């Protein structure tokens, strides 16, 4: 918050999609940016500021639009900003290689009466296409300053700064364009303009001619505006009679004639200002597209790109986490070292609680390397222009299910095959232009197989489908997209029925070479958004979950029981080593606690050490720290060995006791009681209370499902993962593959994790939708689990048979869903 009193000039950056608005915006503002949303919608609002010659300018990056009608959200936002926020100036980014179509928007901006500066961007591409533009003449015809730039190379930056300053100081440098809409419409426009000018309330706020044009275009928002502000109600009735007369007279809607005249004017200006030095019939872009959009090679290339996306981000990203995880872990250890020490069987609240929260945070931060790679790759794909091709290739399939070609990327990121992440998936939904498809995509992305679901699949498959591992993995990897398509269609036909749809008119932009700077900027922006949004909320949620699994806690008697057990273990230890043992003295009283810490530290250091040299150094350090203790941990003499053995025994008992205590606490906790409480119902799905608890607690983070199962099924020493499989088999003798299949399907439909829900809330724009996204998968998952478990048992199916039957059923349902016709088109 700098000096609020300082004068600043608000400048809006407008232009057609892909004209380079964001590039120019970044070029002008540098790093001083702020990203937020326009109030109430999920369209990004980027503001930034800069200083030039001692003055402060504030830039707002408007959404890219082809026009300024009220048919799409982006257009409404851009227009409302210009109408109501009244920027001092608009910088219109015009794609020089596509002048005609870009001027169509320029005219509409100019008609609104806000001073314009034209940034003639992409001059390099225009040149490459053999176009020579007469900038002077263009400036004269448009009545505004025109500055040629090459945004991604920073060319023309100074001149643009200068032009913005000059025009903002001297408004006479801009004259609104006056397009001749022809003999048929002009008289009506004039009459309307006259009427509107008489209305002081209106004409003081808006340009009467602009209002008149918009009214003739039958713009619903402007009609509302008139309704609200007009003193006399007769304007709309006059309009209606004029429009009706026009249509009966000329057989065409006025908006068509208006668009025609604008294009006619644009063509005229282009003809007068653009010289074609050479005819470029086949651009490089066209040649690339011949392969990339080809009937056969297109899908193959798409598949390769998807594969690379997974391989590079998830595959190599995971490997990167091997390096970053120790950093996070040492951060946790650092915190742990300043917290109160671990108790014998009970950790103090001030240790347990912060560690729980930190564990939650670093579990999420662990994904950052993956996200960095992923967001970099997405930014590259976006910048090159491949996204539009991806949508082009797959639109046909998605459309059957009420999705959009642009749903491809979000679903891929979410994990169409195994191992995605719903967070970037949901974030990527922003690009989908059709509101209804966008919502359907946001809602179904979390059904994909994110990385966190995989460990449980692997665990269960290797126990219960060991002979059909390949098929089982294929089943679970592909079943989710099949189900998601059906779900998308159902949502389309029900809750999303009334949502706005956008026509599929998608520009296929020419390919661009992405710039390092642009890619990095976007990648960091998105990663930062994720980190910032998620960390704050994770803390709150982790605290809540902690209470859910620890309260109300053990009863006094049970607590005392564990206390007794603990002291008994200690007594046995001292009895075993005997009073005469020379080490008994150092271990009595506070010495015992000290020794426990020493023992743990030594063990930890030993695990981390690599190579003999390092081990020796550690030994030396520990010998110095406490020579007596060192003898014990090393069993250096007979008595020490005795203590060592006894201590190991004690440790084992202590761990088991801690475990039992924890298990009992969880069982008695609010979460545990819920798990018990639900058993009579979830039994139909084959879930006993243990599974219920594991599933309930994975809500905080799915990857913990295996860990929770691990702790619930823990028996003695903390075991390896292989052990867990054994333990589950041991404890759940009655389980068959149907149990496992039910759990897997439930996990496949598992509600989104908290960070994803946060993103859903952000992207869908309401808490209601977030709750919906959290609840419907549970219902679905339970339905499927009950279906395969109860159904399978009734029919006497084996696990594999049930799997196949479910797969066939899912495909059948999805096929039917795809064939259901959507309601006839809008008009």
């Amino acid at each position, binding site marked *: 918050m700098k000096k609020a009193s300082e004068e600043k000039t608000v400048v809006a950056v407008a232009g057609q999609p892909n004209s380079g608005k964001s590039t120019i915006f970044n070029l002008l503002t540098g790093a001083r940016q702020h990203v937020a949303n326009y109030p109430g919608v999920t369209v990004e609002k980027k503001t930034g500021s800069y200083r030039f010659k001692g003055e402060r300018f504030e830039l707002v990056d408007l959404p890219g639009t082809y026009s300024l009608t009220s048919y799409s959200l982006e257009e409404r936002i851009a227009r409302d900003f210009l109408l109501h926020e009244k920027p001092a100036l608009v910088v219109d980014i015009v794609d020089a290689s596509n002048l005609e179509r870009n001027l169509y928007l320029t005219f509409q901006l100019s008609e609104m009466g806000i001073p314009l500066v034209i940034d003639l961007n992409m001059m390099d591409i225009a040149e490459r296409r053999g176009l020579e533009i007469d900038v002077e003449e263009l400036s004269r015809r448009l009545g505004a300053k025109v500055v040629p730039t090459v945004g991604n190379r920073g060319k023309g930056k100074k001149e643009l700064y200068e032009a913005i300053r000059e025009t903002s100081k001297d408004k006479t440098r801009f004259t609104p364009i006056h397009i001749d809409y022809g003999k048929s419409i002009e008289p009506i426009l004039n009459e309307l303009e006259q009427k509107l000018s008489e209305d002081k309330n209106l004409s003081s706020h808006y340009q009467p001619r602009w209002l008149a044009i918009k009214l003739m275009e039958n713009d619903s928002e402007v009609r509302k505006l008139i309704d609200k502000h007009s003193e006399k109600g007769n304007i709309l009735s006059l309009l209606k009679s004029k429009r009706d007369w026009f249509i009966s007279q000329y057989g065409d809607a006025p908006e068509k004639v208006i*668009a*025609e005249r604008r*294009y006619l004017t644009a063509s005229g200006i282009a003809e007068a200002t653009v010289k074609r030095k050479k005819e470029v019939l086949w651009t490089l872009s066209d040649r690339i597209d011949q392969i990339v959009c080809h009937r056969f090679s297109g899908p193959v290339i798409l598949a390769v790109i998807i594969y690379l996306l997974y391989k590079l981000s998830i595959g190599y990203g995971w490997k990167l986490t091997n390096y970053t995880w120790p950093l996070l872990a040492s951060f946790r250890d650092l915190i742990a070292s300043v917290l109160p020490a671990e108790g014998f069987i009970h950790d103090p609240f001030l240790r347990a609680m912060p560690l729980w929260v930190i564990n939650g945070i670093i579990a999420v931060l662990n994904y950052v390397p993956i996200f960095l790679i992923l967001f970099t790759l997405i930014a590259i794909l976006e910048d090159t222009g491949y996204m539009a091709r991806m949508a*082009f290739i797959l639109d046909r399939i998605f*459309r059957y299910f009420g999705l959009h070609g642009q749903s491809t990327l979000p679903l891929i990121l979410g994990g169409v095959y195994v191992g995605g992440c719903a967070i970037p998936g949901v974030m990527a939904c922003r690009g989908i232009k059709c509101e209804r498809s966008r919502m359907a995509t946001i809602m179904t992305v979390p059904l994909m197989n994110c990385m966190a679901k995989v460990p449980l699949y692997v665990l269960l498959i290797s126990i219960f489908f060991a002979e059909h591992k390949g098929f089982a993995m294929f089943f679970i990897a592909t079943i989710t997209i099949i189900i998601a398509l059906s779900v998308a269609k159902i949502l389309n036909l029900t809750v999303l029925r009334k949502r706005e749809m956008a*026509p*599929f008119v998608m*520009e296929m932009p020419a390919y661009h070479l992405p710039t390092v700077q642009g890619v990095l900027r976007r990648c960091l922006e998105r990663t930062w958004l994720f980190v910032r949004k998620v960390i704050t909320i994770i803390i709150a949620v982790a605290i809540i979950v902690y209470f859910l699994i620890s309260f109300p806690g053990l009863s006094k008697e049970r607590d005392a029981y564990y206390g007794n057990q603990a002291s008994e273990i200690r007594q046995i230890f001292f009895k075993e080593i005997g009073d005469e043992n020379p080490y008994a003295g150092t271990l009595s009283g506070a010495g015992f606690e000290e020794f426990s810490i020493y023992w743990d530290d030594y063990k930890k250091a030993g695990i981390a050490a690599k190579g003999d040299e390092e081990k020796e150094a550690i030994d030396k350090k520990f010998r110095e720290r406490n020579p007596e203790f060192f003898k014990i941990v090393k069993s250096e003499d007979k008595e020490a060995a005795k203590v060592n053995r006894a201590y190991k025994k004690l440790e084992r008992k202590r761990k088991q006791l801690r475990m039992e205590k924890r298990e009992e606490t969880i069982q008695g906790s609010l979460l545990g009681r819920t798990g018990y409480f639900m058993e009579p119902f979830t039994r139909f799905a084959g879930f006993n209370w243990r599974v219920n608890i594991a599933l309930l607690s994975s809500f905080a983070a799915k990857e913990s499902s295996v860990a929770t199962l691990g702790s619930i099924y823990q028996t003695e020493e903390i075991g390896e993962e292989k052990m867990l499989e054994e333990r589950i088999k041991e404890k759940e003798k009655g389980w068959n593959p149907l149990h496992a299949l039910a759990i897997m399907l439930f996990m496949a439909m598992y509600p989104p994790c908290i960070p994803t829900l946060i993103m859903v809330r952000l992207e869908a724009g309401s808490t209601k939708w977030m709750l919906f996204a959290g609840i419907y998968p549970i219902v679905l998952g339970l339905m499927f689990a009950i279906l395969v478990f109860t159904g399978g048992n009734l029919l006497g199916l084996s696990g594999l048979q049930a799997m196949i039957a479910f797969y066939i059923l899912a495909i059948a349902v999805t096929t039917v869903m795809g064939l259901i016709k959507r309601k006839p*088109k*809008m008009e």
Partner: protein
Amino acid sequence: MTLDEMKPGQECRILKVNIGGATGQRLLDMGFIPGTKVRVIRNAPLVDPVEFNVRGYHVSLRHSEAKGVEVELQ
């Protein structure tokens, strides 16, 4: 005939845009104006959508949208 009936490689001239509302307006905004030349570039691998060249840039439409544009072959 209408724009969706055109084959890749063919060129035509727009006679009239027969749909209104959001789709019609968007088509007009993108330059689908009577008299404009349109070349069909290619169909998507699954036939729909179709890519066109209009006024020097490329745009793809679904057949359902292209149906609303009346054209004559060149």
